[in-house]
């Protein structure tokens, strides 16, 4: 799950798509317009984002409307923050140990 999230985020086009969706939901064609790549390529990026559950799709008649789901982003950020905090704490302990009179 976390792997899917980080993989999805590891591409500038996908990050740009998420940035656009964070401003509000959009149709696939609307979303593809600013990118200098084919609609097909944009669709592939969108599918990857959907697999990571970062993007959700709903149908309104014949339109596919996409929206952002921020929850996996929160989880990825939490994981990074926790892992970093654990090591920061261990290095803090190391500093304390090194300052002890030998």
């Amino acid at each position, binding site marked *: 799950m976390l792997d899917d999230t980080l993989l999805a985020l590891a591409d500038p086009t996908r990050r740009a798509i998420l940035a656009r969706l964070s401003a509000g939901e959009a149709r696939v064609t609307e979303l593809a317009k600013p990118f200098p790549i084919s609609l097909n390529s944009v669709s592939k990026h969108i599918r990857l984002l959907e697999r990571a559950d970062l993007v959700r799709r709903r149908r309104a008649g014949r339109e596919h409307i996409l929206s952002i789901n921020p929850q996996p982003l929160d989880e990825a950020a939490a994981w990074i923050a926790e*892992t970093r905090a654990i*090591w920061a704490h261990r*290095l*803090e302990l*190391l500093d304390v140990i*090194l300052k002890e009179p030998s």
Partner: protein
Amino acid sequence: MTRTVTVTRRFDASAEAVFDAWLDPKKAGRFVFATPTGQMVRAEIDARVGGKFVFVDRRPEMGDVLHEGEYLEIDRPRRLVFTFLVPQYSKEVTTVALDIRPLGAGCELTLTHEGVLPDYEAQTQQGWGMILDGLAKVV
């Protein structure tokens, strides 16, 4: 997919002293693999490339937690790389790299941890709480 976390910290101690602490079983057992409520019942380091380390932390709520790994690079006092596995939490081996450079009278250490597991998350969260409790006691 590799996940990477980087932490940097400055020390007043020399690069050699910081480096050596990681390969000293008594010291390493107190800061790398220890928990505030645990008791380090086994701490073994075979400090050569290809050598293994084993640490067993006896925790009141979990029993004996084994930490094991292998040294991949030992370049005193600049760089130390080792693999790191806690079989109780996950089967995936992760890698920790330390880069130490002299800075003023002390040194700066950059730690890079690659490939930490999603399964490990819940445990990490639990561990973090314990660690913060311990920090409050130390400082």
